[in-house]
């Protein structure tokens, strides 16, 4: 089933001067077409101002498209009456963990979403327990969020979304404010949720190494989707990525540079292990020759 179905989505920020005349029109989204199937792990890459956060806000019906259509879980986002259904089916995790935690105790914060949905009390407790266990934060249920690390806070925020039983989670740069350890924690949690709980994941980021496990990667630049494909397909085009001011993972770049110097390496190496394997093959090849 199609989880997210966007067709020729356009969104314009209109800047007006003091008299209300249109000063400038800024196209944050320019005919974006996006298809996400249920259970997919899709990553959107892009530099600052590429329109990737604007895209995320559309899927949660926080912003409405100027042109084009967007269906989330079969609901049209323009339909005001369906807005809460959309937000329940597509939960959103934001960048700053401090600004999305509402309660002073971890478990109460996770319970906030189900409370809003009018879920009965016992069911809330069940869901809170399940989602905290799913993100590995169950031991911290009675802690104050202020005393947790950034990565832990972000996992609590993810648990808060999971407790609403969404079919899809949109993460808008969830690791941008975290240290390397926190980033690893959060990405591992997201991957596990995608694999074990079969939640559709839409990860928005500008860290390349976070997207190598995605099923599909989209690259956005000034409001347009400029590249689309599997991580391997995307990362084999190092020059093109650099044009969009994006870096490739370190190993990929090393392999790319070596290949340019004439070493017989395959395109789009993503992990260190793959690189080691490819190098071994090159060496063995050199011996047999």
């Amino acid at each position, binding site marked *: 089933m199609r989880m997210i179905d966007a067709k020729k989505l356009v969104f314009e920020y209109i800047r007006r001067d003091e008299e209300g005349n249109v000063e400038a029109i800024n196209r944050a989204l320019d005919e974006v077409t996006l298809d996400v199937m249920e259970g997919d792990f899709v990553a959107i890459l892009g530099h600052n101002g590429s329109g990737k956060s604007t895209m995320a806000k559309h899927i*949660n019906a*926080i912003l409405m498209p100027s042109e084009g259509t967007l269906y989330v879980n079969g609901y049209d986002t323009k339909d005001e009456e369906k807005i*809460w259904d959309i*937000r*329940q089916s597509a*939960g*959103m995790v*934001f960048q*700053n963990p*401090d*600004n*999305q*935690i*509402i*309660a*002073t*105790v971890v*478990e*109460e914060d996770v*319970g*906030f*979403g*189900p*409370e*809003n*949905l*009018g*879920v*009965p*009390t016992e069911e*809330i*407790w069940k869901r*809170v327990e399940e989602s905290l266990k799913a993100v590995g934060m169950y031991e911290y249920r009675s802690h104050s*969020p*202020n005393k947790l690390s950034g990565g832990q806070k972000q996992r609590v925020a993810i648990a*808060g*979304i999971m407790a*609403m039983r969404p079919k899809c989670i949109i993460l808008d740069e969830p690791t941008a404010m975290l240290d390397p350890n926190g980033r690893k924690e959060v990405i591992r949690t997201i991957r596990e949720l995608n694999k074990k709980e079969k939640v559709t994941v839409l990860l928005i980021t500008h860290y390349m190494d976070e997207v190598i496990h995605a099923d599909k990667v989209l690259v956005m630049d000034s409001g347009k989707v400029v590249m689309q494909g599997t991580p391997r397909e995307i990362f084999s085009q190092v020059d093109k990525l650099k044009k969009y001011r994006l870096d490739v993972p370190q190993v990929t770049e090393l392999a790319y540079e070596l290949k340019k110097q004439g070493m017989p390496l395959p395109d789009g190496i993503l992990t260190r292990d793959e690189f080691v394997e490819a190098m071994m093959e090159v060496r063995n090849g050199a011996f047999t020759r």
Partner: protein
Amino acid sequence: MIRDITIGQYYPSGSIIHRLDPRIKLIGTIVYIVSMFLFDTFWGYLVTGLFLFGIIKASKVPLKYIVKGLKSVIILLLFTVSFNLFLTPGEHELVRIGFIKITAEGLRFAVYMGLRLVLLILGSSLMTFTTTPNELTDGIERLLGFLKVIHVPVHEVAMMMSIALRFIPILLEETDKIMKAQQARGADFETGNLIRRAKAMVPILVPLFISAFRRAGDLAMAMEARCYRGGKGRTKMKPLKYKGKDMMAFCVLAVYILAILGVDRYFPMI
């Protein structure tokens, strides 16, 4: 400095007082505060003091920790006591230095006033020591629920209170960060007179306000993304229900009030 203030902080110990319904604790505190003004004899203070001491023991919050909370109000306390001591007119003059005189009535009044204030502060701070901010706002929301009839947005106000409480430590941390960043660039918050120091605070407040507004916007968006749409149709994860121990607490409170009224009426004045 800000971290030294113990008033209004939660002290988890899991005692029976902690597990009481926040509504009974709120009502109890109000009754306790009102009761302070019902008596005028030494016996009244004794009963109140014993009552408070009993509750503190039951709450398992260390007495030292509670008394530390008095530090922040010591100036107010000294002011009240000395004003009463020196400015109460009376017939039995005890000491006279120049135009200042201390009368027996003044002494008695000052001691009682000081005691009253101390008992008042200790009693009300005990409530915040034993109740989490969320329980407190839940309790207030339920107690004032009747105001919904006349369209007072009780739920919204309670939600605002609990969010404000959640953001106090975050904003404190942020203030600290801004101060350090400005000190690193040569700002001076420590020297100069009061006015100069107050002026030095302005460059801290401006970025703090801006960031607070940005946080508020982000939080509102995050709450909407989690389907928050006001109090209607909302269920509670921890609903408030009176239990046996809450009924007992009500009885204790009633006994206390009767004792206060009794000693005030039937025991001789000291």
